[in-house]
C-alpha cells in the first residue's frame, strides 16, 4: 500500500555514499532558484527550528544565461506525487543519477541550525529560561527593560592573597575578585586583550564588569604593565579597604579598554 510519501535521496559526495541523506518527501517546504546555476530544496528538519537545505548545480543555456527552471521544479513535484515510486533520487554525485537532465550535481546538504528567531513583539507569560547564550536587543536604539528584581546568577569569587598579580579573563569572569593586599603597594595587571576577547566571548563594543575588592592593608593600582591590546582609560588607586567596579569593553579584534569605576 502506497502512502504517497516517497523517500528522497540526496548525496553530495562523488567518492562514496557516506554523506547521503534520506528525507521524507512530505517534509519538503520549498523549492527555489536564485541564481543562474543554483537550485535549492528545503526540508523541514527534525529539530523544527530550521530546514535542511539541499543545493544543486543546474544547467544554464548555451549562452550562459539562466535556463527556465520550471521543467526541473515541475518534474520534482510530479515525481513526489507519483504513487508508484517509493524512492526518488534528487541527486547522487556518487552514482551520477539526477532527477532531471538539467540537474548537474549536488553542491551540498546543509544541516539545520538550532537557532529560533523571534520577530516582532513577544511576551512570555510564564517563567523563561535559556540553556545557552541569549541576546536581547540589537542596537543602541533598542531598549532592554527589566521590570523586576535583578539577580546576576552564577557569580563566584576569586581570592588573591598576594601583593600583586595578573588578572586573567577566567578570574574576571567569576564576577568578584577579593584581593587581600599585603607587604607593600600592589599592582594588578590585566591579561592581554586577545585573552579577554576570547575568554569572555566578547563581540565588538561588548562590555563586561567585575567587582574588585581590596580587603588587604595596602594601596593597589590597577594599570599594571603594558599588556598587548589593553588600554587603561583611567587609574584610580584603590586604597586598602576600598572597592571598584572593573569594566572591560571590546574595542577591536584583540583589543579592550579598561575602565575603573
Amino acid at each position, binding site marked *: 500500500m502506497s502512502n504517497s510519501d516517497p523517500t528522497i535521496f540526496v548525496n553530495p559526495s562523488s567518492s562514496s555514499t557516506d554523506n547521503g541523506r534520506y528525507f521524507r518527501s512530505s517534509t519538503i517546504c*520549498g523549492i527555489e*532558484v536564485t541564481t543562474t546555476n543554483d537550485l*535549492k530544496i528545503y526540508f523541514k528538519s527534525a529539530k523544527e527550528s530550521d530546514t535542511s*537545505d539541499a543545493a544543486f548545480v543546474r544547467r544554464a543555456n548555451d549562452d550562459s544565461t539562466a535556463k*527556465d527552471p*520550471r521543467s526541473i521544479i*515541475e518534474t520534482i513535484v510530479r515525481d513526489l506525487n507519483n504513487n508508484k515510486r517509493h524512492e526518488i533520487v534528487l541527486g547522487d554525485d556518487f552514482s551520477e543519477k539526477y532527477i532531471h537532465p538539467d540537474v548537474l550535481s549536488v553542491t551540498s546538504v546543509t544541516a539545520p541550525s538550532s537557532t529560533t528567531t523571534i520577530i516582532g513583539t513577544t511576551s512570555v507569560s510564564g517563567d523563561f529560561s535559556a540553556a545557552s547564550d541569549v541576546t536581547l536587543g540589537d542596537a543602541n536604539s533598542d531598549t532592554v527593560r527589566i521590570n523586576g528584581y535583578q539577580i546576576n546568577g552564577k557569580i563566584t569569587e576569586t581570592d588573591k592573597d598576594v601583593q600583586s598579580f595578573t588578572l586573567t579573563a577566567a578570574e574576571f569572569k567569576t564576577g568578584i575578585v577579593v584581593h587581600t593586599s599585603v607587604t607593600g603597594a600592589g599592582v594588578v595587571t590585566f591579561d592581554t586583550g586577545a585573552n579577554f576577547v576570547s575568554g569572555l566571548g566578547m563581540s565588538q563594543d561588548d562590555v563586561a564588569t567585575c567587582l574588585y575588592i581590596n580587603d588587604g592593608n595596602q594601596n593597589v593600582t590597577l594599570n599594571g604593565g603594558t599588556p598587548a591590546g589593553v588600554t587603561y582609560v583611567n587609574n584610580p588607586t584603590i586604597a586598602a579597604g576600598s572597592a571598584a567596579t572593573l569594566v572591560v569593553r571590546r574595542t577591536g579584534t584583540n583589543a579592550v579598554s579598561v575602565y575603573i569605576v
Partner: protein
Amino acid sequence: MNKFLYFANSATDAGAIPVSLLREIQISASSDLLRFKFKDVGDGIGQEISISCSTTEDKADKVVSSIANEIEFGTNPFIVIADEINNEFIHPDLLSVDTSISLT
C-alpha cells in the same frame, strides 16, 4: 496529493511552495494586489514568506476563486500561479509577480 504553488519572476527568481504552508491570501487596500502568506519554512517565530502579485483592480476575488478551485479540485499537483517567463497565469486577471520569490 502534495500540491505546490509555483511562482516565477525570472529564470533566476522562481520557486514552488507546498499548498500546506499557505496560510492566507490577502487583497490589498487598493484592490489590485494579492499577497500570499506562507508559514515560514525555518519556523522563525513571527516570520512569514510573503509573495505579492498584481491583479486587475477589483478582480482579485475572481483570481482567488480560481486558485481555491485548483487547490481543492485540481488533479495537477504543480499549480502555476504566475509564471512570467512563459507568460502563464492561473487567471487572466492575475497580471504579474511583484516581489522576489525568497523562501528563506
